[in-house]
């Protein structure tokens, strides 16, 4: 084995999903345009993008529900096959369960379809239902459950067969804070056990909190990709947020002062070449200033999303 082949092998071993230059068209419409990215094993990876950006099509191609027109996809080290599919748990955006069938029966059937033995599926389903506080609803029909309960059953169906890779679309929609935390804890627990989690969501604060890396798609193209922290830093402006009292505009190096988000504090936009450290020093020596909070103005993912997606819309970028 050559050194290059060896490196490739290591890379494949560590990669849960490798997407190489995939394109998908529907007639004249390009849903996904020359998209490449990878998801490392054991990480929590977030996919985001505006409605109609190509996320669902990309996920469906990863899962072999759709075939890409061009490009290549590897899942868990190889092009997807029947055996690989059994190692994936998928929860689509459009939830789906048999409505007139008892919860346990649905779970056992879906678990068996993923290759589990009947008794194993039953035991695991009962354990997860208990964990999700749904023991009393084991024999209830799915249609008799509340929306939040159905959502929890859906998540259980996704992870029942102990997958190595979980792809989950909007995992927290319809859940109250308590159940959101419950599902979050379940995902964290699985992730700690080495399960790779890919989640697609519009809840940016969840991505900030949970995801290691992210991919943002717009008009079928990759517009943001990388470590969540790095991406936010990349969009960080030369500005600081301060809370307190004082004449902020009089500070040396401050070019512009603007009200902070939700009226809390102010954002001090700094002139080129002026560092936040210099502003902090000036504040420290200035007796006329009282500071309760000082932090770098790193934009939230929500702000980045709006900025990137908005620019894409304004430019009428590719894709179409």
């Amino acid at each position, binding site marked *: 084995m050559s050194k290059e082949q060896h490196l490739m092998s290591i890379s494949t071993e560590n990669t849960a999903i490798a997407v190489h230059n995939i394109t998908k068209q529907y*007639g004249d419409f390009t849903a996904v345009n020359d998209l490449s990215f990878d998801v490392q094993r054991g990480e929590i990876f977030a996919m985001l993008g505006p409605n*109609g950006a190509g996320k669902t099509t990309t996920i*469906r191609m990863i899962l*072999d529900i759709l075939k890409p027109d061009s490009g290549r996809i590897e899942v868990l080290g190889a092009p997807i096959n029947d055996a690989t599919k059994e190692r994936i748990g998928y929860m689509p955006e*459009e939830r*789906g369960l048999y409505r007139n069938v008892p919860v346990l029966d649905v779970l056992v059937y*879906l678990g068996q379809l993923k290759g589990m033995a009947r008794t194993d599926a039953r035991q695991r389903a009962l354990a997860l239902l208990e964990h999700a506080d749904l023991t009393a609803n084991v024999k209830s029909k799915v249609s008799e459950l509340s929306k939040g309960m159905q959502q929890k059953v859906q998540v259980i169906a996704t992870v029942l067969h102990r997958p190595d890779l979980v792809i989950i679309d909007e995992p927290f929609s319809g859940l109250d804070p308590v159940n959101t935390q419950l599902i979050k804890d379940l995902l964290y627990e699985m992730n700690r056990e080495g399960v790779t989690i890919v989640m697609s969501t519009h809840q940016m604060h969840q991505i900030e909190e949970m995801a290691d890396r992210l991919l943002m798609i717009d008009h*079928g193209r990759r517009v943001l990709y990388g470590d969540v922290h790095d991406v936010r830093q990349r969009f960080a402006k030369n500005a600081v947020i301060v809370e307190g009292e004082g004449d902020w505009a009089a500070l040396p190096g401050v070019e512009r002062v603007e009200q902070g988000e939700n009226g809390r504090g102010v954002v001090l936009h700094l002139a080129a070449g002026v560092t936040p450290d210099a502003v902090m020093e000036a504040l420290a020596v200035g007796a006329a200033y009282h500071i309760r909070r000082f932090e770098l103005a790193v934009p939230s993912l929500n702000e980045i999303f709006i900025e990137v997606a908005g620019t894409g819309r304004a430019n009428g970028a590719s894709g179409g």
Partner: protein
Amino acid sequence: MISSKVWLVLRREYTYNFRRPSFLFTAFGVPLISLIAMFLIFQFSVARETKLDKFQRVSYIDRALIIDPAGPNPADYTPVTDPDLAAPAAGSQPDVLPAVFDALEAYASEQLQAGELDAYFVIPEHYVLSGQVTLVAQRSIPEALRDGIEDFLTAQIAYRAPETLPVPVERLADVEFTLRDLDSGEELSEAALVGRLLLPFIFVMIYFMATSTTAQFLMSGVVEEKENRLMEILATSLRPAELLVGKLLGLGALALTQVVLWAMGGLLIAQINESARAFLGGTKFETSHLILIGVLFVINFLIFAAAMLGIGAAVTAEAESRQIAGFFTFLAVLPIMFSVAFFTNPNGPLPLFFSFFPLTAAVGLTMRLGVSTLPSWQIWLSLAIQVITALFIVWLAVKVFRLGMLMYGKSLTPRTLWVALREGRVTLTSVPAEAGEAARAPRRRKGLFR
């Protein structure tokens, strides 16, 4: 060899649909209700036709002058006599008799109205030529009374017949005939003859109900999985072909179960009822015919199930699917609606057409099998047409299924399907949100989604 996932789908479809109230009612309820209804009707008829409690006082008026009061009279019928009417003197001229009998009839009618008589019968003057009598009663006349009068007259004729009569007297009073199969020479009872005519009809009714019920289940199952967004999850667990084969086999087994249950019901009735046994025995079906019917059943089920599957995958709601399915069901039921044509002229143009039209061929051929001997070329041609149709419809259903299974909230139009087939674009696909935007964008040339 059935894969484990096909087996799982098969088992799930079978057990889930078996427990459906509509299936339980069709499979068990309908035969049970039919049995109970038949039993009650039979009991009622027997009671009505054999009981003579309300016909104790029956009299007769003998215009033919054939009844000898000294002759046999097992039922004790009495001649109508009017105490106010002087009996015609012995040796009266025949021309006075009609007036006397008319008066007696009027008197008998009054007696009947007054409840003094339960019934009376008039033996007409030319009874010897016509063999008919007029029986008058105010309530429904039971079969036992007719039989009693017939026996009375036969006995009287026999009593009066000269001993030198060259034929048995019974042959003069009654005509008996024997039914024989022309091919086998086998003697057939009356029930067997009725069975021979009706059994194919009953068989196709059962066959049609089983096929249409289960094919409807298949359709509603696909609609449910599509509308409940299960398809996408199922698509990541097994191949579409495994899902389709599992469903077809599961519901095919269910249809077979229904037929077997009904057949067992029929055999059970035959075990306890002699007429039913003769009725079933009247069937002209041979082993080769039964094999042919089995093959026809499988092909017909494939055609219908695949059609329903395609419809289920193409539409967005069960109500919509039922409307389209209704058209197929209407076509399939046509031979049953025109069943008279099969009884009167099984080789006529209409039965012939139904034997070759793909959607009616199985039913048409089966109905003709029972009442006629079919040329083998017709059987083979019909089979070939059905096999080709089944292959085409299954092929098309798979395409429609693949194209429509993820089209949430959208119907697959024939135009979209045609464009997709022409462009060879049938993959496991959907019309995703992205395509919605594409639909609003200007087009340079014709595309799949518009």
